[in-house]
């Protein structure tokens, strides 16, 4: 501390150390705010159309287009350390036949940035999916699909964390039971428009 330069350096260096510890305490304080988000989805209209990836290509691809209703409440995820919450909807479908972990595909249909607790109360009616879903092979082969609502909490300081809500085949939300409200979360991808069903449905 013998000269001005040394005193400035030491003071600023210790300030950065203190700033690191204060930031660590802030990040740890998020443990005090447990969250219970909820969501329910209802599928409205499922379409599969064929198209081309771009104008001059010869490959024909099937695209899945969806309309859905979404009622979600993510406002409990917001505390003083939350900068924004990124919510997104993924569709998970397996390849033909058995669907195990290595043949499952996930595609994001729709996403939204929720910058505050007010914006986190979502009530969407007949919302069109933002992104088309297409398979790398170009065909869906009418596999079974299900939707999953996921979110990513982005804090001001600290670690990112993710969460999701899924439902089983009857529409019971797996993370918490929604009494009396049973939306449609899973479906079978229909054949492409204008084409015949590839798999014969069992007598229903």
């Amino acid at each position, binding site marked *: 501390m013998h000269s001005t330069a040394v005193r400035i350096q030491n003071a600023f260096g210790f300030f950065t150390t203190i700033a690191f510890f204060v930031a660590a*305490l802030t990040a740890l304080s998020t443990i005090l705010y447990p969250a219970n988000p909820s969501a329910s989805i209802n599928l409205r209209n499922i379409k599969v159309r064929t198209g081309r990836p771009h104008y001059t290509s010869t490959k024909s691809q099937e695209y899945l287009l969806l309309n859905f209703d979404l009622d979600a409440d993510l406002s409990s995820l917001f505390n003083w350390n939350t900068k924004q919450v990124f919510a997104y909807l993924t569709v998970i479908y397996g390849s033909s036949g058995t669907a195990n972990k290595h043949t499952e595909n996930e595609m994001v249909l729709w996403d939204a940035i929720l910058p505050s607790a007010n914006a986190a109360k979502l009530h969407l009616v007949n919302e069109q999916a933002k992104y088309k879903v297409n398979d790398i092979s170009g065909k869906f082969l009418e596999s079974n699909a299900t939707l999953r609502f996921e979110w990513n909490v982005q804090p001001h300081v600290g670690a990112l964390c993710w969460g999701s809500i899924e439902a089983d085949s009857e529409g019971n939300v797996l993370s918490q039971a929604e009494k009396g409200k049973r939306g449609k979360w899973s479906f079978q991808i229909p054949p492409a428009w204008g084409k015949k069903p590839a798999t014969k449905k069992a007598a229903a």
Partner: protein
Amino acid sequence: MGTIQRFVDSFIDFEDQKLAEQLCNILLILMGLIAYAIGFTFQDLRYIVYISLGGTALTMLAVVPPWPFFNKHPVSCFLLEQRRWRTKSNSDAGHGLGRKSWVQAFSNFSFKDNVNAD
């Protein structure tokens, strides 16, 4: 050049260097605690940021410039050397024996006196 160097160096004596370091550490730790406490009470991170920046500025103001209270234990062991160096030139008006602080002893020292006795 001498005044610039004196301004940049701003030497303080040894005992008060310890005081300066202790003061710097205590002030910054207190600033961190107060900033976090106020931020947590109001549930807003902006309080933490502004109080931390203001507290750092206050600490720099208290510790960096050579205030008079950093001059409580002046070191006067260099005066004899100074007298030996300065016998060549006659420009030591007002410097004799007696209790002078290390700051004042160094403030009249410049490299020119030692290297080239012009």
